[in-house]
């Protein structure tokens, strides 16, 4: 089944390019560490999922590129075309002349309705090229005008128009929340030893993370049968309740190519780190706080998660671990099934799933990705809401939004909703 990607705004398009590049490079990686037949099945599955029929041999990404000003899309298209290995469809972009000015209201209330028909038509065309549609992958930043505002508008439209398909929004958080860019920045600095970090480096790390989750994985039937409904399976495992749909991705290992040549890993080692990353809410494998432990079962819980406490334990609703590489079947995951890690709603057997695939990812002999529905994102969300509230209380910048039809009421509604989400996630400890 195929996934159609919608890349929105500068950030969405820059990252989207790196994602397709990572997916393509990985699927054509010679060191699959598996049999030729398996490798071919992997390639075919990846291709069906993310690329469409080639004209003259070059696969075309199943993507729609949207931006309100042309510079980034032009760059993205030419970068792909120049690589010679894959490209974007010639008619898959929608572009205007003037951007959204970093204004959500402009992206949502002005660009949205104005260009609704053209954009949805483009998406429809892309959907028609799929034999069967698994769902949509939407890449957007939160801080700007197009990705954020127009992205919200498009997501709503997709909900209405394709109500049976699944949507996954990959959002990029602004700097200063400790999430995404900040975290990836640190990954680039500490683990990958990149001296002058560019946005390209950051985007490539993100692309690697996403690739390691969305590349084909074996379904229950075993080898050669790759999962047909990745989005559905993912959501079934991880999103039991519509109020809780914020997922976080953690990846291990992450290192520069040079270091990779000299490193070996064991599944036990990798998984131990990954588990601790989960419960201590660390973003990378260095500087993990090993003091954090799950509450001992049988003892009363320590009370509501306090956002100010330094060493709080990260409670999960559900987790999915995706393992790729050598000897993957020998990996032992019992520690992830510990009921102490989870809320009491689901039986641990339902709260935790693992997908194992022999075929290695990228250049990593062994790699593990954790997609989790947990309290991962509460702190950054809380931080953003706090900053926004302070600004709103001073009425700063409000005139820039009311100019385009977003009223104070709308702001208050959003605040109320987010406070609800934060409160719900905070109470998972009970």
């Amino acid at each position: 089944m195929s996934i159609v990607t919608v890349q929105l705004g500068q950030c969405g398009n820059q990252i989207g390019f790196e994602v397709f590049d990572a997916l393509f490079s990985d699927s054509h990686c010679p060191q699959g560490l598996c049999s030729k037949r398996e490798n071919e099945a992997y390639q075919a599955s990846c291709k069906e999922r993310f690329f469409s029929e080639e004209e003259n041999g070059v696969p075309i990404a199943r993507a729609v590129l949207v931006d309100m000003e042309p510079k980034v899309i032009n760059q993205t298209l030419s970068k792909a075309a120049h690589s010679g290995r894959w490209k974007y469809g010639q008619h898959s972009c929608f572009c205007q002349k003037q951007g959204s000015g970093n204004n959500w209201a402009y992206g949502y209330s002005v660009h949205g309705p104005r260009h609704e028909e053209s954009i949805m038509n483009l998406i429809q065309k892309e959907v028609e090229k799929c034999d069967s549609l698994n769902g949509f992958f939407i890449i957007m930043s939160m801080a700007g005008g197009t990705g954020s505002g127009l992205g919200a508008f498009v997501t709503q439209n997709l909900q209405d128009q394709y109500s049976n398909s699944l949507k996954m929004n990959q959002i990029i958080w602004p700097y200063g929340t400790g999430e995404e860019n900040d975290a990836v920045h640190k990954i680039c600095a500490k683990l990958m030893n990149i001296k002058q970090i560019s946005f390209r480096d950051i985007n490539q790390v993100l692309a690697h993370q996403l690739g390691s989750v969305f590349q084909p994985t074996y379904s229950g039937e075993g080898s050669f049968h790759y999962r047909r409904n990745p989005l559905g399976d993912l959501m079934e495992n991880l999103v039991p309740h519509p109020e809780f749909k914020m997922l976080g991705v953690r990846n291990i290992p992450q290192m520069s190519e040079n270091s990779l040549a000299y490193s070996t890993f064991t599944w036990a080692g990798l998984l131990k780190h990954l588990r601790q990353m989960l419960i201590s809410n660390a973003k990378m494998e260095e500087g993990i706080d090993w003091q954090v432990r799950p509450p001992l079962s049988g003892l009363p819980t320590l009370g509501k998660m306090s956002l100010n406490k330094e060493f709080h334990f990260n409670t999960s609703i559900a987790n999915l671990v995706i393992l790729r590489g050598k000897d993957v079947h020998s990996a032992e995951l019992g520690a992830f099934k510990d009921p102490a890690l989870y809320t009491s709603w689901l039986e641990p057997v339902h709260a935790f799933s693992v997908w194992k695939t022999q075929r290695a990812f990228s250049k990593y002999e062994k790699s593990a990705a954790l997609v989790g529905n947990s309290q991962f994102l509460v702190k950054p969300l809380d931080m953003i809401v706090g900053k926004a509230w302070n600004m709103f209380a001073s009425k700063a910048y409000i005139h820039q939004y009311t100019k385009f039809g977003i009223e104070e009421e709308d702001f208050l509604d959003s605040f109320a909703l987010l406070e609800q989400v934060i409160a719900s996630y905070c109470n998972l400890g009970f």
Partner: protein
Amino acid sequence: MTQSVVIQVGQCGNQIGCCFWDLALREHAAVNQKAIYDEAISSFFRNVDTRVVGDGGSISKGKICSLKARAVLIDMEEGVVNEILQGPLRDVFDSKQLITDISGSGNNWAVGHKVFGSLYQEQILEKLRKSAEHCDCLQCFFVIHSMGGGTGSGLGTFLLKVLEDEFPEVYRFVTSVYPSGEDDVITSPYNSMLAMKELNEHADCVLPIDNQSLFDIISKIDLMVNSGKLGTAIKPKSLVTSSAGAFKKRQEKPFDAMNNIVANLLLNLTSSARFEGSLNMDLNEISMNLVPFPQLHYLVSSLTPLYTLADVNVPSRRLDQMFSDAFSKDHQLIQADPKHSLYLACALMVRGNVQISDLRRNIERLKPSLRFVSWNQEGWKTSLCSVPPVGHSHSLLALANNTCVKPTFIELRERFTRLYKKRAHLHHYLQVEGMEESCFTEAMSSLSALIQEYDQLDATKSMPAEDLPRLRVAV
């Protein structure tokens, strides 16, 4: 890609404008070696086939035929505009885009605003509409003028109201040269005060400049050039004050060096909208991010580097120096002290081979010494444009919305009051039809209200940054 139109008004406005077009041509020539008319050039220039008579000559793609500036030149005396039209840039300007008169405004805002305003309103509208028609997607009007005289000040601000009514969706960025302490025009306080009211009400963004700061920058450069220290040979063309080739042969005019600084400001301001980069910043984003309240739209600008030394290696230490310089008073285009006042927001527009990590590192480094308003502690807007200015490997333009502009306005009010109390020269204004004393008192209240808004923000400076109680929801 969007286009912008420059409207240069009065002697000062036209002289600065002239330097701007000179440097813009040089910049695009350096980047666009194959002389293809591309989107970057089209932001400020039209491509015209001069053999075609009348309006049909515009060419939108392909090789450059003849470039015409997207400009409207307005002056109520002929001297300056004539000189431009006879100078080396004569072919760059469309002779139909001029509005001139003979007698001048006599350093009288009322003459510029009321008399010439009504006299030329139709013509002005016509030229503006023409220039807008030539644009695929017009984003911004840049108005360049001085505050202290009659034409730039009066007619220049009359224009703003016309622009707002006729093109409400197009941004109005105004570069205003404020009178210095020792100004040779006695009535400049009146002119400036009356102009300020218009700027308050009809401009989206104002970049105030004063001659004293420009002069100080020049002195600093001269000192550097003449010091003859080892290893201080300066790269040719890299001076922020130097003109492009056009003026090389003949004697440079006295204000050229100063005007070039302002021209460079405008070039850097628009670079991210014209050229590509990993983090673009369009002109509409400047207004969105830097103007939290509609009236507080005065931005203090500072440019670095002022020159590039001839040695080629640029270790990142020097890059960091560039960021520090941007926050030094020596590099500001207006006399003010942002470090000891309150930042509402700050934009850093970087050009050249600089990465996001360099940017973040320097922001972290400089943050502790700067005070930001409590609700905008991370009020930094950044952009990265990959194309550096001519003669440099990288550059930085900082735009600060900071309460440090308050003293400038307070001083303006004081100079105004001194004159007005004695009713000196007032009759020159009141005898103009449409002018009454209320114009003066209204202008005064407008300025006082503005100063008070800055006062209120300053008062929060000493309060600790407290988080306000949040919404509580039932779980």
